[in-house]
């Protein structure tokens, strides 16, 4: 990892030339963000299963151990509750732990620490303590993985108040949002779309930068229908938007980027403008975060709707194993069918 950053640094020249960029993947952006923040702030440490010597099972922490040493890059025992619990204790006493959960499907043993503690320390102590920490986890399907490796249960963290939830969809956003998450004074769950960890590269500034939490982006502006998504599903929406373009339909893609705090204004503005909306997520439909978006639109933009908001989501089933997963995951065609419904209503 050091190579990437170091070489790029060397070419960056004197301060001010912040425009120097580098083409990186999301996985590399995670690594670079961690390295830059660790360099910037000695309180930042990285911990988790296989994050040290092995550089993470997705190589998202590669090189950090060599660079920052075993005191700041901790290969932990195999115990998620222990990882998050110790991180809470550390965060409450002056460190800024960035803990990795190897796959989102393995976060369940840590739910008690996340929901009963991490989320509540500030409120519980009326501000005497707080828990500035980040819990990174790869989430979502599409990599032909065994059971429990494709989970996407972000809704759990969104109904439990006190946790910020961030889901980048591009390398640039990953760098900027992860930096913000680490600098944030509140706990952040940072969901990494593992399916697109290495799917594409993007030019990203070499120097540290942040992207504020709570601000959606519009990677594809449009006029007639709004497609809302986050993480890996943003690309599915972009594909759909391009297909629609070819049919002469102008779709606007809203990438929420952070689910809490939620950029309600950008979402509602878009829906008010287009009058049609399709919400896309990988999690099961029922009680998924898509329901919340529909509810918000219902509450704030009902009269602007030309048709019911459509949800394109995972089914209300267990995420299937590799051989059937493509049937489960929302794809371009499913989004297109949903868009059609909003026009035919």
């Amino acid at each position: 990892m050091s190579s990437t950053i170091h070489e790029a640094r060397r070419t960056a020249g004197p301060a001010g030339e912040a425009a120097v960029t580098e083409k990186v993947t999301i996985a590399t952006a995670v690594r670079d963000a961690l390295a830059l923040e660790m360099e910037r702030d000695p309180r930042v440490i990285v911990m988790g299963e296989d994050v040290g010597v092995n550089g993470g099972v997705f190589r998202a922490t590669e090189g950090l151990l060599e660079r920052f040493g075993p005191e700041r890059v901790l290969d932990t025992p195999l115990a998620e509750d222990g990882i998050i619990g110790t991180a809470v204790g550390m965060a409450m006493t002056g460190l800024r732990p960035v803990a990795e959960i190897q796959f989102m499907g393995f976060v369940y043993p840590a739910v008690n620490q996340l929901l009963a503690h991490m989320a509540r320390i500030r409120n519980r102590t009326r501000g005497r303590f707080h828990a500035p920490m980040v819990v990174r986890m790869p989430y979502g399907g599409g990599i032909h993985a065994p059971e429990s490796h494709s989970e996407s249960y972000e809704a759990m963290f969104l109904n439990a108040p006190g946790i910020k939830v961030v889901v980048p969809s591009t390398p640039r956003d990953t760098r900027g949002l992860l930096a913000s998450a680490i600098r944030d004074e509140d706990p952040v769950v940072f969901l990494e779309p593992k399916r697109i960890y290495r799917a594409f590269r993007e030019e990203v500034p070499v120097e540290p930068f942040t992207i504020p939490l709570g601000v959606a982006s519009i990677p594809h502006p449009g006029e007639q229908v709004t497609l809302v998504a986050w993480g890996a599903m943003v690309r599915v929406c972009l594909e759909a938007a391009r297909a629609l373009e070819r049919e002469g339909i102008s779709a606007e893609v809203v990438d929420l980027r952070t689910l809490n705090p939620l950029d309600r204004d950008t979402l509602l503005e878009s829906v008010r403008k287009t009058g049609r909306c399709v919400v896309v997520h990988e999690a099961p439909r029922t009680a998924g975060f898509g329901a919340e978006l529909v509810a918000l639109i219902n509450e704030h933009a009902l009269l602007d709707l030309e048709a019911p908001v459509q949800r394109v989501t995972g089914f209300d089933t267990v995420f299937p194993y590799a051989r059937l997963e493509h049937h489960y995951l929302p794809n371009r065609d499913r989004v297109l069918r949903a868009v059609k419904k909003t026009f035919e209503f």
Partner: protein
Amino acid sequence: MPRKPIVTATIERLEILSPDGSVDEALLPELSGEDMVGLYREMVRMRAYDEKAVKLQRQGRMGTWAPLKGQEAPQAALALAMEPEDWLIPAFREHGIMLARGVPGHVLYAYWAGDERGSAFPEDVRVFPIPVPVGSQFAHGAGVGMSLALRGEPGVAVTFGGDGATSEGDFHEALNFAGVFRARTIFVIQNNQWAISVPREKQTAAETLAQKAVAHGIPGIQVDGNDVFAVHVAAREALDRARSGEGPTLIEAVTYRLGDHTTADDAGRYRDPEELARWQERDPIPRMRRFLEARGLWDEQQELVLTDEATAWVEAQVEALEAMPAPDPADIFRYMYAEMPASLREQMEELREEVSS
């Protein structure tokens, strides 16, 4: 090389002060008379504070309360053994040591009276808030112990928990982390024989709780938890070990919950009165008084003064509690995040309108 022992672990039990007040002089820690009297005074103050809370609860002036009566010794002993730089990570029955470590009495009362301000301890008080989910605090203790070392700060994390809590997986994960990272943490189990209605024997087939340390390759010791000297000695050793970077220790303090689990519980439903009577004879406070009197360090007159002092102090805490202004409903929202998001501000406004209408 057939069948051979490869690990032998021994758990010791330490007792110094007998229920009749006599001591094993060889093991008695080197404490000044003042410190010894101090231990006694702390225990008496704890009991007064606790008994008052139970009364307040009966009068409807306090919420559910978890009595600590009978468990004063581990708390007083640890409080004395700890340094100012050390951190306390309590469970929920550690009122005594929380007070001793600087939590204002009326603040802790406020917690149990159903007020979040009861966990807003002063900035210089190194005490964690009460963690309600049993067993979940141990990992915080391990994390604090690791954090102190990583940040190059002095201090040890002292984590408390009950016998029941040792059945939660959290407990083991925490001990294991502490062992692996040689955390500057000590784990004190107040084995008060009961987890609500479940007796110690049904909680685990292990003969002692101290031996749970063996699973994690760290030292464990059992002490008479109603013997303030025994706890003090074990605590001192453990704190020294942690402070010098030799890693964590598990201390099982065998004691007894003389009261109900909480004021919402009726221990009479599940507990043999004879068992209670037997343990009342082992009460840590009279035992210590006998010892002090035998040494000429205490007399009836001092006892009377102390009782008055303790009562007055407790009354002052009650007064301070009852003088607290009512909590502001907006506090429900204020501390959720460093900055209040717009959606939450709206909800707060909704409530404000409601309250004022």
